[in-house]
């Protein structure tokens, strides 16, 4: 079957297998920032924004993304500048091996698009679907907090 969707701002019409996952479609289309993890919705490494909401792309049929706007980690930068969440992850050392980072950042972007001043509890809950096997999560939580502060302070607020 054929679907049309927007991936990181570019409209694409693609042939898919009806049982194909969005994760597999994205990687087949060269969007490799979307990571393959557990394949069962437990780890969050494959998180992407679909019409502004973070979902596990390993659990979503690509067919359901017909007409949708999909944003991955590659689509967050604007005019060569990283998203404030990406900047904050770098500044706070919220990255070790980096495998969970795209999914973590996507979950954080979803949170901050709806809640400009989340509490630590709200940040923890928002990241609870993203597993990191390197860190103790503290630095990622600090990074989201810093990104929220910067976004409230002006500049980019999406």
């Amino acid at each position, binding site marked *: 079957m054929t679907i049309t969707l927007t991936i990181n701002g570019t409209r694409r019409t693609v042939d898919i297998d009806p049982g194909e996952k969005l994760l597999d479609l994205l990687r087949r289309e060269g969007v490799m920032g979307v990571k393959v993890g557990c394949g069962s*919705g437990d780890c969050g490494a494959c998180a992407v924004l679909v019409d502004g909401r973070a979902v596990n792309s390993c*659990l979503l049929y690509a067919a359901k993304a017909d007409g949708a706007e999909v944003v991955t980690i590659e689509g967050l930068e604007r005019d060569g500048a990283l998203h404030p969440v990406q900047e904050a992850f770098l500044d706070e050392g919220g990255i070790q091996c980096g495998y969970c980072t795209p999914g973590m950042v996507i979950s954080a972007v*979803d949170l901050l698009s709806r809640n400009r001043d989340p509490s630590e509890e709200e940040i923890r*809950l*928002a990241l*609870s*679907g993203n597993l990191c096997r390197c860190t103790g999560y503290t630095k990622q939580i600090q990074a989201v907090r810093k990104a929220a502060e910067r976004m409230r302070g002006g500049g980019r607020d999406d």
Partner: protein
Amino acid sequence: MLAERGKAARAVGGGIDVHLFRVQEASALVDLTSIDLAYVRADGGLAIGATTTFTEILESSEGAAYLGGILVEVLEQVASPLQRNQGTIGGTIGSAHPWSDVIPLLLVLDAELTVYDGQERQTPLARYLSDRSTGARPLIVEIRLPAASRGDGCAFEAFTTTGFDVAILNCAAYAVLDGGRCEIARVAVGGTPALAGRLFAVEEMLVDAPLDEAAIERAAEKTAEAIDARDDRRATADYRRTLARVGVTRCLRRIAQQGGIG
């Protein structure tokens, strides 16, 4: 297509369970989210469209306001935010997993479903679940929760190994109190590891009596006896009976406290 193809066609809400529990005989998937069934409406009670996601319910003022915020309290515990953005209330009922946190809650809230199987009709959730065990699979259109009554309270308790894991056992209770006396009581326990069901023997013990500590203790003991507790890889039957006793005690105490006699 669903009627023509029978078991070979599957209705898909968010699609999570169809993905995770791949059904070999399915050769066609029918996406229900393309029809407009994503809504939460307060109309005395609450009407929730079948394809409404957990997040949409959590973010709706109508859902948050219902019966002291019990829907928010429970749905916030379901899976992860990523899955709550995708999973639908109709899908979770249709999957009828024995570990579902949603089903025991909806059972004690006396939820009624609008279903479609050639024609639209109303059916209590409990009836839908028992019909389902005989192979009936009507489409779920809407979930209706009754209007709150004066003096009512509801509580839920789930026991999990991690915040993200499915419940080893869960329970929900609802009661209407009048001056501390229990007029209506509904208790459901799930994950025993069987699918959640109401415990009518426990409910009968509670009705027409004060919801005091002695009554709660008796109800909790009866719950432990009444559930169909079995061993599985998550827990033993004995452990589940202990959890049921503790869970029902906590739920009923919380309701009693809400009712002002705790």
